[in-house]
């Protein structure tokens, strides 16, 4: 059974066992506009929570994607490298960025639930 949480930096995290799948939220993808380039972390790299993990670019903007939780990179979504439009097409599904083996379950638990995140987006 998987659970999904959200960061205030507009990343989502889906946890299955100790494997977290991470991407950017639908709201973030809409704000960014057409994504033209995605730079993903190296497999095997260990990321710390809130550290820079990936880069996502539209024509006029480049944004850092942060790791919402710490962990070691297990897999990256290479399909995005060839077809960055995948981020716009299905940001919270097929447009995932990378998977981590998480180091600290507590970090995940402290992230926002869907309702909380939706409220944040509404406020902004």
């Amino acid at each position, binding site marked *: 059974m998987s659970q999904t949480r959200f960061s205030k930096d507009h990343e989502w995290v889906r946890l299955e066992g100790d494997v977290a799948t991470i991407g950017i939220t639908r709201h973030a993808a809409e704000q960014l506009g057409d994504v033209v*380039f995605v*730079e993903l972390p190296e497999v095997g790299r260990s990321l710390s929570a809130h550290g820079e993990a990936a880069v996502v*670019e*539209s*024509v*006029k*903007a*480049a944004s850092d994607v942060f790791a919402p939780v710490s962990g070691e990179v297990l897999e990256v979504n290479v399909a995005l490298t060839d077809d960055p439009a995948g981020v716009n097409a299905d940001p919270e599904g097929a447009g995932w960025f990378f998977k981590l083996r998480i180091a600290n379950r507590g970090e995940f638990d402290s992230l926002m639930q869907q309702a909380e995140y939706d409220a944040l987006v509404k406020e902004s």
Partner: protein
Amino acid sequence: MRYLPLTPDDRAAMLARIGAKSIDDLFVDVPSAAVVDRGRFALPDGMGELEVERHLSRLSAKNLAAGSAAFFCGSGAYRHHVPASVDHLIQRSEFLTSYTPYQPEISQGTLQYLFEFQTQVAMLTGMEVANASLYDGSTAAAEAVEMARRITKRAKVVLCGGLHPHYAATITTLAQLSGGEIIAAPRRPGQGEDLASLIDGETACVVIQSPDVFGLLHDLRPLAEAAHAKGALLVAVLNEVVSLGLLEAPGAMGADIVAAEGQSIGNGLNFGGPYVGLFATREKFLRQMPGRLAGETMDAAGRRGYVLTLSTREQHIRREKATSNICTNSGLCALAFTIHLSLLGEEGFARLARLNHARAVLLAERLGAVRGVELVTQNFFNEFTLRLPRPAEAVIDALVEENVLGGVPASRLFPGDSAAQSLLIVAATETNSTDDIETYAHALAKVLS
């Protein structure tokens, strides 16, 4: 003032619309302590065209223009013949007085020539992609080193001994800022260099110039192999891009980044600037490349067109994370390059290169035959080094009296290097007639006798 269209009446009417009593009202935010009187400046009042021409022509006349002498200087700037149409075309208002092509719908002229320029540079250097130019060859070389360090995440930079010293200084100035470690190989004028032994697992790149500052040609292939074996990149530097009409392209010899001075094609000597930096690399390093890029796309009506692209690498978007702080290219110089190279084409460019080489071979024979003069560079394109029986600088000064600008004394480039005192770096191009060459040989014999 002839450039200012507003009349006193216009100014009064405009102030009235604004609701200001005088122009001073518009400068109210300036602290009064910083307001300067008209009479404060030790500067003249305005002049008419005729007076300006008179003043500047007087300064111009105090110089010995290259075209008024038998001229043989190179060392990073070369005198070639530029067809009349080049200067005519680059002075068209639409090229000369337009801004960076940020509005592609009304800037296709600039964008398309930049795309043509990028293609030409990639073709000449044997690389996959080129940018829309950098300031000049030296800054392109410094950017190449920074790029190699970003790609490899390593600190060490090996510079060949034959690198133009201004290029080495520019690279060093920039590299030191971010913790780069420069390893400069010893100078061996006219001889091969053992750079491979300086490369190790910490080396980001090795910078090789060919033809080098002494004119010597280097085979890049063994060095590329040695660099790649250690995970380092090969940065190839060129001062004289016309050499590529005759010589193997650095890309074909394994270079990863090519940084070259493009002045030789389309651009005059201009006492050192403006010039045009050529910068080319492999496609896989594209995202790490500095500078502007024009790319092909379609408009809403499905017609082919061009835009500036991949600008997320650049300062106006990436700010402190940009690949470089460069905010411009050398647009008009790049246009001159593109037009001149289009006029030359494959055949003309090769012929130009052969002509340069033939002139230099003849010059080397004639000067090498002067008593006491030794040819130091055996394999060269259009530039070589001589060893004179006397300090070269004094010889060059004496040659001026014979109306010969006979080259660049190595002591000007390597002051304090006693071995350089007697070396003279000499270049010949298609602009040198056989008479020029004979004049030089006679004058040198006279000065040395």
